[in-house]
């Protein structure tokens, strides 16, 4: 059959009225009709098989073993996206800051995990476990304790930034507290050698890659990558709108970072630790992205 598109330089079809709706029935049994039927059948079978393969492939992905609340392939993609974000991350990129007057008067609260146990604010201490390869030694012998006054002795940073909840809403809030990096500059607990962070852009080589924050009752816990933790807009926050934190906002000390969704803004910090591996994260165990970064 000589029905393949011919390569002779005939004149192409000029603009014309669409053939839709015309009677385009081919002579039954003609070579052209057989060719049209053959190509139609082949193409629709191909599309059908591709559709079936797509459905089966997607169902296969969904049937893979669970990895912290989501099928493993989806978890791997979330983690790969996180690594890509980390490679693109620059500590010089700052979240936009707003005028203090643009901050909301009444700050919305959302979530009380980790806040439901009794707390004696006067007796509260921030516990920090220095970065060490020998975890048991660090846990039992070298844990340092800080009072709120110790944190307030660090330079007070006030910033008005947008808190973005993973649910999709956002509010502009006026926060005040100490930069986490200033805390580590004064108390060099995040390096193996004990050397302080002098330059955020060039941190010491033995700086821990991850930070863990846990509430005193250990009911809520988040993990952060160190680059986000030592970003200049990451605060150990003790004030909202110039007032000490209320209990529902995380008194006496909470984390604030416009580099992460609100789920990472742990309220009522009990213990901070440093780790080689990604620390446990409350929402990442329930199907959410561990990085949750902005």
């Amino acid at each position, binding site marked *: 059959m000589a029905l393949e598109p011919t390569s002779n330089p005939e004149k192409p079809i000029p*603009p014309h009225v669409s053939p839709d709706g015309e009677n385009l029935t081919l002579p039954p049994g003609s070579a052209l009709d057989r060719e049209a039927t053959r190509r139609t059948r082949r*193409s629709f079978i191909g*599309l059908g098989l591709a559709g079936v393969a797509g459905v089966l492939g997607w169902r296969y992905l969904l049937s893979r073993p669970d990895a912290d609340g989501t099928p493993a392939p989806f978890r791997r993609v979330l983690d790969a996206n996180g690594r890509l974000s980390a490679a693109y991350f620059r500590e010089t990129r700052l979240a936009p800051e707003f005028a203090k007057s643009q901050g909301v008067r009444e700050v919305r609260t959302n979530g009380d995990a980790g806040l439901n146990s009794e707390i004696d604010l006067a007796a509260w201490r921030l516990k920090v476990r220095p970065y060490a390869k020998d975890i048991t030694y660090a846990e039992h012998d070298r844990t340092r304790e800080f009072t709120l006054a110790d944190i307030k002795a660090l330079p007070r940073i006030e910033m008005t930034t947008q808190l973005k909840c993973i649910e999709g809403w956002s509010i502009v809030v006026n926060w005040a507290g100490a930069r986490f990096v200033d805390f580590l500059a004064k108390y060099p607990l995040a390096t193996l050698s004990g050397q302080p962070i002098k330059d955020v852009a060039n941190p010491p080589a033995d700086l821990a890659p991850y930070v863990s924050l846990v509430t005193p009752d250990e009911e809520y816990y988040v993990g952060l990558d160190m680059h986000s933790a030592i970003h200049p807009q990451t605060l150990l926050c003790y004030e909202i709108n110039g007032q000490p934190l209320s209990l529902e906002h995380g008194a006496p000390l909470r984390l604030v970072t416009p580099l992460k969704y609100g789920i990472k803004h742990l309220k009522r910090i009990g213990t901070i630790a440093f780790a080689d591996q990604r620390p446990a994260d409350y929402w990442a165990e329930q199907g959410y992205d561990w990085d949750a970064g902005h």
Partner: protein
Amino acid sequence: MKKLVEKHPLAIRWFHWVNFPVLALMIWSGLWIYWANDIYRLGWGNTTLYKFFPQSFYDATHLDHKLAQGMAWHFLLMWVFFINGLLYVLYTLFSGEWRYLLPNRHSFREAIEVTLHDLGLRQAAPLVQKYNGAQRLAYTAVILMGLGSLLTGLAIYKPTQFGWLTQGLGGYEAARVEHFVLTIGYVLFFIVHVAQVGRAGWNNFRSMVAGFEIEDVPAGAASPRLAPREPEPKA
């Protein structure tokens, strides 16, 4: 003389049929995400014409309480949507198919003629070259919408690292609205597209699967391909 005229190259058919389920799942997972903060509505002041979405919609679709799952799907399929769309654009550029797809100086007038014809208000069907003016506008617009979804999506996804983009789009809240509006745009596109495909009939629909269309080709214009030039201006 009836001929099988090659209409849609294989690559474009693949891009089209890959995009269809991927975009559908992006919209579906997007609705799972949107549900967690479903604040948009059509209206003004205290008057609401339509809330996105009424409880009856959620009751019918069961797309509530799936935020984490929605994000996991969305942030996987975004890569497929992006890569497929990028390959499509590159293919149309390098194959010359863009000549049929981009609007030209006749397209706006032609689009009006097409619309009037389709509404039964104009007798004469306009001349087309694979796509009519309305199609050129629609198929170019939907690609720009795809780019818009990628950019507004990135602005919501990484609003600090891409702060310039987020601010350029009017801020985080505005970018989220824009991302949502574009999605509504796809739904409207889909409704019109499917209706038009239904109207155009089997010969046209088959061409998006099998590639060819049966045409009554005038003698002397027998080559089964379409002229890549712009239509001649009519007298």
